[in-house]
């Protein structure tokens, strides 16, 4: 197992290189640059653009900019500025003075890490995931056990909504119902320190994952229910509860876990729509805004973080297989 983990972690290096290379080519292929301004306003003076390009190294050939980002480059004063290999994600071109690490990982004045953009996204992602799993898995189990009953139909109805209705539509509906009509929560949280303000964003963010989890759990359970070993367990007089949880659920969770891994990575890296609607200070909004602003380092940084998280999530999925099914050998 140890060798497997090390090998998979080493594979991260070429993955990061390929992802960063593709991202770099794509973002530099798009016209425009970080100094472009709203067309109805004064544009940045060409000389200032030249100075900024020189300062940030954007005047160098593209291949050198890429090498500088990955490995590093020499500053004008002759000192070496290390790049990604030293964990440096580069400077933001729009939030002048801030590095990408500071934007994503630095908390505001007097707060801890969980108040950084990454911290906020992780918290919301975990809450959304908890919601998805805690509701999705039981809903799937009940649906399968009570197939073609009202419980199954209700569950399927909610699941279908979760899969087919975009989350911004669900979001505005829930906002109107719970905030505008019932006044249970406020639309604009006065503070993210309150627990209740997380409920709506977490539910909306996790709704799609919950629906997919329920659907997959149901399908997987239905398949497992007809297996010989389940019939055998029942035949030898095992309690139904044990049959469900020990034999059926455990075996049916493998495809669910496969899906949940990347979902967790997606949830903790934030959602542009949810963050925009709730004024949530997470990573998703930073990522999408950076693309529009051509904030190259920010695009690269967030893409790489996302890539690493997906890779780690997949690794953890592989490790979870072993726990769920002892027949699986990773080495």
């Amino acid at each position, binding site marked *: 197992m140890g060798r497997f983990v090390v090998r998979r972690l080493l594979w991260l290096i070429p993955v990061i290189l390929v992802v960063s290379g593709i991202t770099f080519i794509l973002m530099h292929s*798009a*016209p*425009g*640059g970080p*100094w*472009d*301004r*709203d*067309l*109805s*306003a*004064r*544009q*940045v*003076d060409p*000389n*200032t653009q030249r*100075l900024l390009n*020189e*300062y940030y190294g954007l005047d160098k050939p593209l291949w050198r900019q890429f090498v500088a980002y990955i490995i590093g480059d020499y500053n*004008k004063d002759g000192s070496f500025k290390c790049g990604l290999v030293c964990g440096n994600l580069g400077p933001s071109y*729009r*939030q*002048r*003075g*801030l590095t990408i690490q*500071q934007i994503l990982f630095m908390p*505001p*004045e007097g*707060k801890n890490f969980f*108040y950084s*953009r990454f911290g906020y996204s992780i918290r919301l992602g975990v*809450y959304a995931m*908890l919601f998805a*799993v*805690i509701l999705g898995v039981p809903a799937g189990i009940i649906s399968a056990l009570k197939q073609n009953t009202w419980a199954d139909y209700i569950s399927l109805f909610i699941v279908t909504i979760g899969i087919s209705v975009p989350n911004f539509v669900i979001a*505005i509906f829930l*906002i*109107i119902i719970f*905030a*505008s009509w019932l*006044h*249970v929560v*406020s*639309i*604009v949280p006065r503070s*993210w320190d309150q*627990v*209740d303000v*997380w*409920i709506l964003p*977490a539910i909306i963010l996790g709704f799609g994952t919950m629906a997919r989890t329920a659907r997959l759990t149901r399908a997987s359970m239905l398949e497992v229910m007809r297996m010989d070993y389940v019939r055998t367990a029942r035949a030898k007089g095992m309690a139904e509860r044990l049959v469900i949880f020990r034999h059926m659920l455990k075996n049916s969770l493998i495809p669910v876990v496969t899906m949940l891994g990347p979902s967790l990575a997606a949830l903790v890296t934030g959602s542009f729509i949810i963050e*925009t*609607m*709730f*004024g949530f*200070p997470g990573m998703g*909004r930073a990522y999408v805004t950076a693309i*529009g*602003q051509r904030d190259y380092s920010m695009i690269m940084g967030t893409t790489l973080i996302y890539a690493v998280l997906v890779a780690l999530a997949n690794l953890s999925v592989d490790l979870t297989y072993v726990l769920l099914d002892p027949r699986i050998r990773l080495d």
Partner: protein
Amino acid sequence: MRSKLFAVAALLIVASMVLAACQPAAAPAPETIVQTVVVEGEVKEVVVTATPAPEAAKPAVLRINLGTYPDTIDPQKSSFVNEIAHLKLMYEGLTRLDGDLNTIPAAAEKWEYNADATEITFTMRPGLTYSDGTLLNAKRFEYSILRNIDPATAGEYAAITDDIKGAIEWRTADVANLSEEELATLKAGVMVQALDDAGQPCTDYEQTTCNTLKIGLAQPAPYFHVVMGLWVTFPAKEELIAEGGDIWWNASKFHVGNGPFVLQNLEPFVRAYFVPNAAYWRGAATYDIEYRYITDGAVSFEAYKNNEFDIVPLGAEDLATVQNDAVLSKEAQIYPGSCTFALMFHQLKEPFTDQKVREAFSYALDRETWVKDVLKGLGSSTLTWIPKGFPGYDAEENRWGFDPEAAKKAIAESSYGSVDKLPEITATFGDTPRNRVRWEWMVAKWKEVLGVDVKLNPVESTTFTGLTKDIKTAPQMFILGWCADYPDPQNWLSVYWKTGAFGERIGYSNPELDALLAQADSTIDPEARMKLYADAQRLLTDGAPVAFMWNNVNSYLVKPWVKGIIQTPQDSGWVGDNDPLTITIDTTMVP
């Protein structure tokens, strides 16, 4: 086993969240207290019923949804409206605008130009201090203006002070290839100097006699006092910038300013909280300000209706709802803005090399219907460049307005003779649902009036911006606007239409206009100067280089308890932010 524990723990967390959410707010209840008291030497126990104190009066807070969180809040590096909205609360320039867009004294008590307007001398207001009580003298403004010009700052609006003698030379210096001595010489050549009462250069920021700021101008610039009210001159403290480093602007403790408010707390992307500056020379405001950053218009609108905001921008998508609502319609504030939008014709790309074709396309545009049907009333049609409400507005201009017959005639008189001989015409725009609607309407109108087919070329928004910046890549036809930096015709005409300025992106260059504008820019007599600008604007319109189309409007929803707002076209960020001191909040009305 572990997974069971995990599931139980997770359930508990969610249950606690739900319970916390459903917990009703505890109402203050009478409390029974048993006290021991001594009455004339005798010990007695009495029961006292303590009635809770009435709820404290609601604090006056103006809650504003500003939309996008700023990229930077550094006076010398900022350029966007939302950034300026923060800076204007915390800092103040030498001059400021009144409600009628007249430039009036602010940190400077007065100013005067020399005879040929090549030098302007500001006299500081006596007794000025920062919010922390420290002295604000002319040396502070010398620093901020020089910092704006400094190539090391590379401020995005740095060029706006290029009228200062020596500013361009230093700002555009080849920093990489010049020695420190050469750069120091260039800096010394910038004619900005803080002087003490004896006329000697000031020595430091503690010098109480440092009351004069003298600025030499590269050419006569009788409008320069207006520029000195812009955010790029705001006097952030040098020592705090040094202490905070490159990211000083990201922490409230480094924003010690001289404006009407003090930034008490800044939580990036969540909120900024401002309290009144007790040391502000015009007196302290009576309320706090809270900025929030909700970019989704639908959510912002719901939050406003839910009394969670006092001021929000009113988007076109909510206009009909507001107009049909008895309460909301009274709370809408819609008034002229500071931008003019025009249909740009590339003067060097056929068929718009021919003035008659440009005239035809302009004649074919029914601007009134455009404003009513497409902009849903959020705008006003125009046939000229400087908008209504700004000095230099030409109410008489009526050329190239909607006239289908004149449009057809112009095509017939063009070098092409008829529409079927026109080369392919493509309209390029940033691909948004709003722009698609706009262009589809326009193309339909041209088809209807002229019988011409115009192809649509939607491109990604930033790509569109990139294309329009260069004369070579600028599209054949596109919509572009200009919003005033400051209310002077020089900013509308010279800054935009002189050869080499922004208008060059469509290949516009008119030596006659250049000469007239140069003359207007340096004319000291205000009346004569305005007359020259009026002539210049007419001359610009003569050639129909573009089709002026509409002026924007500022539109906000404002709660009835927010009183005393003075609207100006130059409001940046929210209605009334030009002078927040006129605003009061009637807390008795706040639900």
